[in-house]
């Protein structure tokens, strides 16, 4: 019971209350109920253009990811060839990078003096779109690929023996059978694209604005909190719809996968048949994914056209402002460690409670409600969390605004759903008969928990720690609202440096991005090695 109460109390205090305050702020101007906030905000063309840009860019990014990702899913999960596993690992690298780093990588590639500067894409929506696709491409490949690799090949063969050409079989049988995975992947891409705050902040150059950047602008520049609250609610609705869609599709997919026998559906790559998929995927991997990263590293080793490590040397020196990159990195590491400890502890408690198997229907539905409550923050963008804290926790009864603990708490709230989604499937995968066997052998429930269930969690906890740490390390959305000017985290500092004039600041921003990307990448690579097979990719 206590195990359920502690995380619940945490979530009420640090999620429900800020969220409720935020909603209330949208409808209440301090003296009376009103929808003036909405009226003002939706009366302005600025808002509509932000909403339009958010939806439009996310939809376009989803379509492009699907077009490029489906051949990739086929190639990397249905065919076997030398180097496939390496290629699979490489295409997932972008997804673990902090969004600010992605923004910086594309920014430096497309700058007028950048490698692809001649394309004239600097500060255009195309740059933002390319960064979104860069970030989300692997989502489609992995979600659809996982299902494709387990789709019984005899289904398409049956179509073949009925006279369908390979193309007709793909269109009428294979793709429809993959629909749950396609919808699930597409709604995730839409969700991630619609909340790529870091990317738009870096690349949008305040010409292109999404709902999230508009919330930031209204809050920190115009101090117009009611309008910001109204926008947050709008964002909440959009995100909830996308999340609901993805959840439904995911349930469909899990059900469909359960019906699949474990078949070996892989076949050797055949150039005449698979050439198109191979060329598409290699082009994406080299041009879209590889080039920005290689360019980022290369540029970070240059200043004023000369090869130098000056940018890295300068990481230790005080940057343009009053803080050096090392100081910010230390802040980031400390915060991320605290956030990880918090998120993993709470996540374990929640997972243990939610994985109980009560016999009474009432108990079961109570647990179901608990689980979805804790997964809720996944749907709420980090920007909303940061904004909610800003307007809630900065005044009595709880004034944490000036306190150092607020950022780790916000990051823990953002990371918590990921942790739960990692731990819960592992616990659920334990065959209930194992627990019954232990009980009939004389173990008390506590002993069963300690000797059977917790040992099962080992690898999943490793993965969860990695997830939580990498997420917190690169967290920018919430932190950008809460970080104090004199004590920023690394992503916040990179953003500031990148926006400042001067080749020195620019160079240091690149070097710092490489360091941050490296840290996040290494953490995720180590964590991935621990992934238990029960835990799906997302």
């Amino acid at each position, binding site marked *: 019971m206590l195990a359920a109460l502690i995380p619940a109390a945490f979530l009420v205090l640090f999620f429900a209350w800020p969220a409720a305050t935020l909603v209330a702020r949208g409808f209440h101007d301090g003296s009376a109920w009103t929808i003036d906030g909405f009226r003002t905000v939706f009366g302005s063309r600025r808002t509509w253009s932000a909403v339009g840009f958010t939806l439009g860019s996310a939809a376009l990014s989803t379509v492009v990811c699907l077009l490029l990702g489906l051949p990739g899913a086929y190639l990397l999960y249905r065919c076997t060839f030398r180097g496939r596993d390496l290629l699979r690992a490489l295409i997932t690298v972008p997804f673990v990078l902090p969004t600010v780093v992605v923004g910086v990588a594309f920014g430096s590639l497309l700058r007028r003096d950048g490698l692809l500067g001649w394309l004239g894409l600097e500060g255009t929506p195309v740059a933002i779109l390319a960064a979104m696709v860069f970030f989300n491409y692997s989502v489609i490949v992995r979600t659809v690929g996982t299902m494709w690799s387990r789709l019984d090949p005899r289904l398409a*063969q049956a*179509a073949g*023996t009925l006279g369908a050409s390979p193309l007709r*079989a793909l269109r*009428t049988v294979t793709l*429809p*059978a993959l*629909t749950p995975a396609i919808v699930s992947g597409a709604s995730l891409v839409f969700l991630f694209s619609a909340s790529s705050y870091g990317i738009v902040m870096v690349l949008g150059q305040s010409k292109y604005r999404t709902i999230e950047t508009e919330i930031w602008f209204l809050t920190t520049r115009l101090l117009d909190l009611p309008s910001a609250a109204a926008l947050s609610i709008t964002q909440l609705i959009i995100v909830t719809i996308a999340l609901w869609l993805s959840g439904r599709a995911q349930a469909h997919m899990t059900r469909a996968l359960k019906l699949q026998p474990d078949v070996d559906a892989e076949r050797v790559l055949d150039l005449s048949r698979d050439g198109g998929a191979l060329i598409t995927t290699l082009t994406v991997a080299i041009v879209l994914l590889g080039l920005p990263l290689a360019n980022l590293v290369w540029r970070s080793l240059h200043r004023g056209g000369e090869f130098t490590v000056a940018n890295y040397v300068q990481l230790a020196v005080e940057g343009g402002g009053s803080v050096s990159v090392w100081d910010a990195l230390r802040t980031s590491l400390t915060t991320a460690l605290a956030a990880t400890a918090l998120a993993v502890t709470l996540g374990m408690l929640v997972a243990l409670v939610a994985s109980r198997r009560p016999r009474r229907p009432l108990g079961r539905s109570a647990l179901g409600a608990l689980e979805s409550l804790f997964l809720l923050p996944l749907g709420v963008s980090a920007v909303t969390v940061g904004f909610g804290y800003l307007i809630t926790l900065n005044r009595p009864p709880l004034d944490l605004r000036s306190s150092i603990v607020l950022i780790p708490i916000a990051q823990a709230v953002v990371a918590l759903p990921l942790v739960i989604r990692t731990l819960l499937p592992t616990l659920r995968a334990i065959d209930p008969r194992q627990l019954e066997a232990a009980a009939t052998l004389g173990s008390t429930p506590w002993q069963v928990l300690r000797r059977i269930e917790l040992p099962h969690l080992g690898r999943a906890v490793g993965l969860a720690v990695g997830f939580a740490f990498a997420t917190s390390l690169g967290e920018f959305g919430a932190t950008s609202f809460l970080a104090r000017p004199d004590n920023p985290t690394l992503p916040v500092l990179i953003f500031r440096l990148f926006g400042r004039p001067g080749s020195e600041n620019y160079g240091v921003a690149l070097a710092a991005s490489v360091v941050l990307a490296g840290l996040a990448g290494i953490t995720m690579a180590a964590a991935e090695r621990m992934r238990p097979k029960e835990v799906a990719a997302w």
Partner: protein
Amino acid sequence: MVSGLEVRDVTVKYGPTVAVEGVSLHVEPGTVIGLLGASGSGKSTLLRAIAGLQPLSSGAILWDGEDLAPVKVHKRNFGLVFQDGQLFPTMNVAKNIAYGLGKLPKAAQRERVEEMLELVGLAGYGVRKPTELSGGQAQRVALARSLAPSPRALLLDEPLSALDTALRRRLADDLARILRETHTTGVYVTHDHQEAYTVADVVAVLDEGQLLQLDSPESLRERPKNKQVAAFLGYRAFVTEAEAHRLGWQGSLETGEVLGIGPASLHLDPNGYEVDIIDQTLTVEDVEIKVALPDGQTATVSSPTKVDALSTRVTLAGGAVVPA
């Protein structure tokens, strides 16, 4: 020219493993051949090779004398029924059956679907989802789907083995009837000899990729080519002529032949030869009594009730003549 389906000296390899080795067969138009063998005997691989789903290492598959090597799967016009149906989950039953009827106008398609549903005894099931069907119904739909485009041959890959025993027997009868009614040229893969006897006109026994014997069910039962085939068909004990006569057998054997004793060879007979009872097993239909033959081999005899004694009397009424 040979009409119908011809398998000429076909070998199929998976890397270094030889799954089918030098098999030759001929299926006359309108007849059904059974490919009988244990799992791993290469029977399913051979079927997939005929369908064009598995490349040949050597040999040829021909139809009416035409080599099918350059003909792709979807151009072969061979129907294929899988062990587990493989109905398209995104379409209802009628759409599944109509899938191979692309060229027909809509009205003709509907008519054909109705006709097929009627044929397999599922009239009115068109609007159901594949998930709403039982295993037996799903297999009937799979059969209807394969038959709908009137394929020149129908290939069936253990279509009944995922079903329970009673249903399997009933469906095997139905299947045999449908194949005969539609004059279908068929290749029927199974590991159950009862099923093969019911459905096929000719049975090919395969083991480790090789064709052991190709014969009608009757000759297969009475004269298996060797002990290996006989053992696969259920003949577990082999006795000499003298021994057989001692057990009451009336027939005679040539030199170098033995008699295989199968599950239906021995009968209970109060005037028969006395044998010791080793074990009695109750089955749905009878009691299977395991007895010790005079030379120490064991055989089974069917009895309507349990025998309350240490021994019983039996007569050897029949068996399979096998080269020793």
